């Protein structure tokens, strides 16, 4: 039986979706001007990790892979109750697709000797959902995705999860170590405590790790190690609609009936 679980939680800074605008003339995206926020599904990952801390006394370490400007998400993680947090940053990581990203996060998970790695379901800036299963595959660990609830069983070295499956739920027991992806919105994230918030803002300094410290060969990561490339971007054609706003329910019912679709 593993004493005192170590839980790592991977988080990411993303542009605020509501803030990303599109230049109507050029069709290009203004991402740079959008506010940088914590990837919303990561709030649920942090909450799931902190619940394990409450339930089995796990040590929780948050990490993020990104530029040095991403440290505010680590401050937030510490304010919420994480014991420590690390910035994983290296120019060698630039341009990584999900393959080298999940490799890097797998190395980081091993670096902290984690029993459990918890991640959000997906990031809102790329929404692939591929990274958590990818980490599990790199490590050859069990994986639990679309998790709604976790039930730690330290006496059996197991983590039991209730998962969302198409049209229902399943309960799965995974042997440690395990990678978890928490379903977006599937728990109620706690607010930051005042003391912890103060600590995060004033005293806390994140651990800094680069490729070498994680034992990563720079040739394994970055753009050149990414199997996929973006071949092009096309603007989607807008769909023509009538855009008639009617004044009464009677008119609406009549319009629907006239279309012959009921």
């Amino acid at each position, binding site marked *: 039986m593993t004493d005192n679980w170590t839980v790592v939680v991977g988080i990411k800074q993303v542009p605020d979706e509501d803030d990303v605008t*599109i230049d109507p003339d050029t*069709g290009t*995206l203004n991402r740079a001007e959008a506010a940088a926020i914590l990837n919303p599904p990561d709030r649920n990952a942090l909450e799931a990790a902190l619940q394990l801390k409450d339930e089995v006394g796990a040590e929780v370490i948050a990490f993020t892979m990104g530029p040095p400007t991403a440290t505010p998400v680590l401050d937030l993680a510490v304010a919420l109750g994480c014991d420590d947090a690390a910035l994983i940053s290296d120019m060698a990581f630039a341009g990584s*697709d*999900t*393959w080298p990203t999940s*490799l890097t996060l797998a190395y980081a998970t091993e670096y902290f000797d984690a029993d459990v790695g918890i991640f959000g379901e*997906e990031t809102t800036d790329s*929404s*692939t*959902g*591929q990274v958590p*299963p*990818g980490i*599990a*595959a*790199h490590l050859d*660990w*069990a*994986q639990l*995705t*679309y998790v709604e609830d976790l039930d730690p069983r330290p006496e059996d070295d197991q983590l*039991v999860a209730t*998962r*969302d*499956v*198409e*049209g*229902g*739920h*399943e*309960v*799965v*027991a*995974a*042997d440690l170590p395990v990678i978890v992806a928490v379903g977006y*919105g599937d728990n109620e994230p706690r607010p930051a405590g005042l003391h912890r918030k103060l600590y995060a803002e004033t005293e806390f300094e994140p651990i800094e790790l680069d490729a070498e410290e994680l034992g990563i060969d720079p040739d394994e990561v970055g753009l050149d190690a990414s*199997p996929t*490339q*973006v*071949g092009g*971007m*096309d603007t*989607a054609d807008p769909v023509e*609609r*009538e*855009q*008639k*706003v009617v004044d*009464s*329910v*009677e008119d*609406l*019912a*009549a*319009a*629907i*009936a006239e279309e012959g*679709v*009921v």
Partner: protein
Amino acid sequence: MPEVDVDEYKDIWVFIEEHAGEVAPVSWELLAEAKQLMDEKPDDEELVALVIGSDVDDVAEEAIARGADRVLVADDPIFEPYRADPYGKQFRELVAERKPDIALIGGTTTGRDFAGRVAVPTHAGLTADCTQLGIDDEGHLEAGRPAFGGNVVATIKCEAHRPQMATIRPGVFEPLDRDENREGEIEHVDVAVEEDETVTEVLEREVGDTADITDADRIVAAGGGVEGDLSPVERLAEALDAEVAASRKAVDEGWIQHARQVGQTGKTVRPELYVAVGISGAVQHLEGMNDSDVVVAINNDPNAPIFDHADYGIVGDLFEVCDELVAAFEDADDPQEVLA
């Protein structure tokens, strides 16, 4: 990265997702689309359905009837229900042995769990949630996925690695009808996994509502505006003989299950009538319902973007509007009567 001789890789594989003999409809949609892609492939290549499960002979036969040239069947109790680790190991062994050029997987929760797991050890290029597929002049897969809420479609390629993998959003492509006269080969493969190697165990599985909104002729969809009360949407759906669907907001709030989510990370629907109730019209949602014939919007915010993407809109309290609409349709046995 290891050098890969891409010319060694042949055939298109489609992962047939099945649970206890029940096949996820997206599997047949993918077979149909893959059959189109085969026109761009050399004549000696095959369209291969991959069936992993327990007691799946019927599924294998249906795969032939739905367009597969060959079905690879890994049939063992270890594969029921689905678990990422045994499915992943089986897939990895098959890819190493047979070297498929392209592998397509449905973008369901199970499909995404599986694809993410298997793409890594095979060093495949994996594109998520595609809505368009093509093959370029050099024979590479072009996987189109909506980006930034559907305002742009990004084409992703994987030129130096194989297999080229993609998950595809359910509801985008039309399945082929079953043709029992179609011929193909069913091949049982060696089972590569043993139970004592697995690291997960499914303790309970409860799947009740497997309604498929991608098939619906009429849909009434709930958004954040319903504030947790789905009853007006359900009443309107019943009056219109429609399926209930939802925006991501309503799903994330836990008001309705994910299988009914429309849009990015949900499903693509193309009903004759789509009624958006209390849905603001975020681009991520529009992307999943823009192919509907007639779109109706009900929202209390006159500036909600959904009105720009609707044929008919009404500004008002959705609870009142829904109930009045129900009354209007119920009073009229023949819907045409509401015109009178």
